């Protein structure tokens, strides 16, 4: 008998929706043209790409020509930061971001520091909410860009982007948000958020890996990151990944339709899981805000239990979870996000992120609630740190 498989690591990546795959399929073997070619093969590919551009734009309420296709969230983030930095350096050399950004932002900022830019990392409070007072203080007349993530990948904290974007707009500072974890999960409207730049990635919303997009508000000028052919109106060189882009478009369309269900059904599953764990397993604590939070995940520390050991024990029983950011080298490094929240270091190393998707079922949650207490109990029996109560 095959073991039950329960995938609860949807913030790391999601299964491609079979309908997305079907949409992509014709563009590999048959309609394989290069979207830049002017013959019929090329024009078919070109049309497919433009349809997808419309689907992406629709989901975030942008105009199609404000959508730039990239190779994923990481490239979108790199393009936003480096593109603005390079183009606007004559106006100033100061960039503001936060201490809980994804590494695609943090590492790029570190590189920009080496190149002479000045970066301010705004701290967060114990709930993971960016300190708006500190952010306001940090703005000066050298500030050219503020980048604050929308929903955090590890704890799900949702920042009040409209608020921060308004602050930036008032001072004529460009504003970017990494919305890789929110687009397709909660309503994201670039007009309401009032952002200039926004990153998204297909594989976090049942689309394929290796494709994403950067929303660039009309009129925002920036340098390309990839130079070469004049694809994407000379804003990003490289032959377009036609099937990938079609998949991103379809994933956007399907997510759009499922937004409501996500917010009700998936949220209910998450709540059931979280409540079950907190009730059945003593000495557990939820990391980060439980209110300003994405509806599909919970990050829980199991006191005195080492996270990776718990992860592997769950894996041996068919349950996939994460200890934090999986976007790493396959080794577990202490989470900079949980570190930024402050608090006990060992509790940080005991954190498990459960992230659901619209493909999860009540049975999935029941299975986890059935096996998890026993595993945690055994791991505590082996833990030199555990004293019950």
């Amino acid at each position, binding site marked *: 008998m095959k073991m039950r498989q329960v995938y609860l690591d949807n913030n790391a990546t999601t299964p491609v929706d079979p309908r997305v795959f079907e949409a992509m399929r014709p563009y590999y073997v048959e309609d394989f043209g290069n979207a830049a070619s002017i013959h019929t093969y090329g024009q078919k590919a070109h049309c497919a790409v433009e349809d997808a551009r419309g689907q992406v734009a629709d989901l975030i309420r942008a105009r199609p020509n404000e959508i730039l296709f990239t190779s994923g969230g990481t490239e979108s983030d790199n393009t936003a930061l480096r593109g603005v930095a390079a183009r606007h350096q004559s106006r100033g050399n100061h960039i503001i971001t936060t201490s809980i950004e994804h590494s695609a932002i943090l590492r790029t900022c570190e590189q920009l520091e080496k190149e002479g830019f000045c970066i301010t990392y705004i701290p967060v409070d114990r709930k993971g909410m960016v300190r708006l007072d500190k952010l306001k203080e940090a703005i000066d007349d050298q500030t050219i860009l503020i980048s604050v993530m929308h929903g955090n990948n590890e704890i799900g904290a949702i920042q009040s982007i409209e608020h921060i974007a308004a602050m930036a707009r008032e001072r004529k500072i460009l504003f970017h948000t990494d919305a890789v974890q929110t687009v397709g999960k909660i309503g994201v409207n670039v007009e309401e958020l009032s952002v200039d730049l926004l990153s998204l990635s297909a594989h976090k919303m049942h689309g394929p890996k290796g494709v994403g997009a950067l929303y660039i508000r009309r009129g925002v000028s920036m340098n390309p990151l990839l130079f070469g052919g004049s694809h994407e109106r000379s804003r990003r060189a490289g032959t377009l990944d036609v099937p990938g882009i079609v998949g991103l478009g379809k994933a956007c369309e399907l997510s759009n339709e499922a937004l409501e269900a996500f917010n009700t059904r998936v949220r209910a599953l998450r709540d059931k899981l979280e409540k079950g764990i907190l009730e059945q397993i003593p000495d557990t604590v939820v990391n980060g805000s439980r209110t300003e939070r994405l509806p599909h995940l919970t990050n829980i520390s199991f006191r*005195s*239990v*080492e996270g*990776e*050991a718990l992860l*592997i*024990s769950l894996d*041996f029983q068919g349950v996939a979870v994460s200890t934090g950011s999986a976007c790493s080298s*396959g*080794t*577990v490094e202490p989470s900079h996000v949980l570190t930024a929240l402050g608090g006990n*270091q*060992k509790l940080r*190393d005991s954190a498990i992120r459960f992230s659901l998707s619209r493909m999860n079922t009540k049975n999935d949650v029941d299975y986890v609630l059935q096996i998890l207490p026993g595993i945690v109990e*055994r*791991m505590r*029996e*082996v*833990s*030199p*740190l555990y004293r019950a109560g």
Partner: protein
Amino acid sequence: MYSEKARQLITELPNRGTLANATHTSSVENPVCGDITHFYLRVENGVICDCRFQTFGCPGALAASAAVTVLCKGRTLNEVQQLTRKAILEYLGGLPSHKLHGVDLAIEALRQAIGKS
């Protein structure tokens, strides 16, 4: 990634817990990764007749510590002193490369335990 043997040890965690009448104990922490191992041995006439461990650590550290307890039980202190990294890894059927230092943690904990009575 983990061998059948390692999976089994991590799942069952044999010899886990403390030993009330231990004659030898140790407590070791790897300062880099923060993994911690305690060993509890009861030695009679130079023979390890019982052996327990506690570990707060990664799967590699858990598997290695458990392996060491299994390999120690019923052996003499002399025999156990010869226990090598290689022997433990062989018993484990290997470990992922970035988990190999979990074996060193277990060996160090064993050495400390049998070094002091």
